[in-house]
């Protein structure tokens, strides 16, 4: 157990608490930078997908984990980012312009979705975002001249400052850079007044409002920022999959994103990365398990989603803090070794906070 002696206020907002953390994060950074040198193209491609999941996950984590607004429609933002970028590239717009435009467009749509969301609490919001997702999916399927409809459209592969993004090694470093920048930006946002306002709104809207937090503005900002991150992930995803079709962005994708956030651990940026690794690799583990299992079990239709659902349910019941929460427990077990007590991390039951007038 390490105690940091706080001697000036700046230490409270430092990104890293002490040098030990700096060392481990630097080691992690070095290892992900050199990793492609030792990996085959296939695994590099899979890692790219994990990075993209993580970038989208930052967006959803800011909304769900920090602002307490539930969205079942984040696949729509992913799709908007991807399609907007691909369509602009198709018109010959250079990458350096089309990517920011796609992100800005997604953020704008996010803010617009956020406006009706201001009047809604959890339940309504979940369903409204779900409805929004269906409408966007409808638009993509039927606006054929632009989006290619159900047939889909291929993504032009532009030059990214002289190198092609079609190369998965290039895409690896680009998405790694974007992820690192995104995590840094999110961490910065969360220690700024805006980020503190997010958390205040999550914990209690009424007390946040009493303390002078502008509810409408905070929620709209949260939606816009969240949509922007997810749109950015969409831009990269367009290059990763190379061919956009509506079936890549369904309700299932939204739910996978929620799974990422919940399994990773609500309310932590570490959780985003843990969750992304989980969501990125689970389908492969299931595919491997299918080969091993007897065919009667392995051939069940919808097995993959069933396993997703099961894991989601198990996490919610037994470890609501997700993988990051589990890691915190392991870490404190290690640092307190013979003295660890189970009660340290005992879950406290909260009373139901009703939305109704009694």
């Amino acid at each position, binding site marked *: 157990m390490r105690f940091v002696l706080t001697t000036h206020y700046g230490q409270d907002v430092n990104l890293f608490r002490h040098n030990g953390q700096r060392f481990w994060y630097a080691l992690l950074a070095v290892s992900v930078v050199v990793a492609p040198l030792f990996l085959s193209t296939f695994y590099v491609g899979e890692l790219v997908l994990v990075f993209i999941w993580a970038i989208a996950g930052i967006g959803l984590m800011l909304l769900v984990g920090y602002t*307490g607004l539930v969205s079942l429609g984040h696949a729509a933002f992913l799709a908007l980012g991807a399609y907007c970028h691909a369509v602009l590239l198709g018109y010959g717009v250079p990458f350096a312009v089309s990517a920011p435009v796609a992100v800005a467009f997604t953020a704008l749509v996010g803010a617009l979705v956020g406006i009706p969301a201001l009047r809604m609490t959890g339940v309504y919001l*979940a369903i409204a975002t*779900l409805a929004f997702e269906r409408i966007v999916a409808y638009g993509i399927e039927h606006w054929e001249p632009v989006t290619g409809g159900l047939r889909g459209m291929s993504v032009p592969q532009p030059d990214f400052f002289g190198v092609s993004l079609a190369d998965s090694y290039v895409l690896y470093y680009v998405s790694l850079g974007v992820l690192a920048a995104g995590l840094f930006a999110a961490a910065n946002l969360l220690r700024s007044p805006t980020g503190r306002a997010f958390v205040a709104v999550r914990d209690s809207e009424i007390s946040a409002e009493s303390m002078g937090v502008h509810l409408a503005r905070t929620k709209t900002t949260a939606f816009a920022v969240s949509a922007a991150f997810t749109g950015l992930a969409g831009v990269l995803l367009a290059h990763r999959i190379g061919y956009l079709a509506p079936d890549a962005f369904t309700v299932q994708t939204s739910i996978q994103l929620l799974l990422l956030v919940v399994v990773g651990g609500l309310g932590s940026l570490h959780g985003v990365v843990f969750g992304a690794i989980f969501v990125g690799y689970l389908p492969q583990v299931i595919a491997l398990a299918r080969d091993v299992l007897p065919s009667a079990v392995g051939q069940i239709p919808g097995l993959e989603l069933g396993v997703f659902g099961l894991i989601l349910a198990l996490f919610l019941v037994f470890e609501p803090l997700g993988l990051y929460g589990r890691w915190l427990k392991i870490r404190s077990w290690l640092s307190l070794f013979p003295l660890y007590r189970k009660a340290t991390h005992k879950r406290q039951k*909260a009373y139901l906070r009703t939305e109704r007038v009694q």
Partner: protein
Amino acid sequence: MEVFQLLLSGLSQGCVYGLIALGFVMIYKATEMLNFAQGDMMMLGAFVAITFVNLAGLPFFVGFLITLVVMVGFGMGLERTVIRPMIGEPPFAVLMLTIGLGFILRAVAGAIWGSGPRTLDVPFAGSVLEVGGVVLGYENLVVIGGTALLCIALWAFFRYSRIGVAMQAASQNQLAAYYCGVPVKRVTSLVWGISAAISAAAGVLVAPVMLIDPMMGFLGIKAFAAAIVGGFGSLPGAIVGGLLIGVVEQFAGLYLPAGLGEVSAFVILLVMLMARPQGIFASMQQKKV
């Protein structure tokens, strides 16, 4: 005449949305939990009915009654094992849990009954009734009639039976109900059971009109729209919202560009949320300080 037929098929479709909406409005009122697996409970109910009617060869109405009993048991068991430990957790966690449950139910149904579409053998399938040039399918009439009967039965249950009144009490104020000697836990369990049975009834009623497959639970998404349009937390509102969405969907499907019928429910929902978020039958107010 075409209008009349559209209206009829819209109403019968709307009845199904309404019934599913009724199921989760009940749960929401009693426990403030949102059950995303309601549509999948409908799917499960339809498959259970297939098992008893098609495979076991029981008469339709006997099979239907057994299905209802089985689903009441299923709902209560689900509440007891999975939902009750979640009391006191944030609403979001329960929402996610029921989404997960929905996936599990789909996979389980796929494993037991296969993923191919099936039809339920019903005695009234395919026959039509002609009244003054309007062709009315019996299936549609049965859906509407069945929903009406079910609503009357539920109304009587809540109005006159002891346990029904206890449920109303528990849903209005859990703590006060508890003080008055209402066994809130058991009542909640029963609410889940009845809600599962209602959605099973919806599944059986819809069976002649559409094919049954493990993915039919997605219908539940439109039922959410129905519940919100009707005013979340209002039981008659759920049915009215369902009817409204069912009818609009049919008309939009015919008179508007292709595919718009599919999303019209969601458009209505978003418009409703912006214009009148409390729904047609407002029953809940925003909490004020």
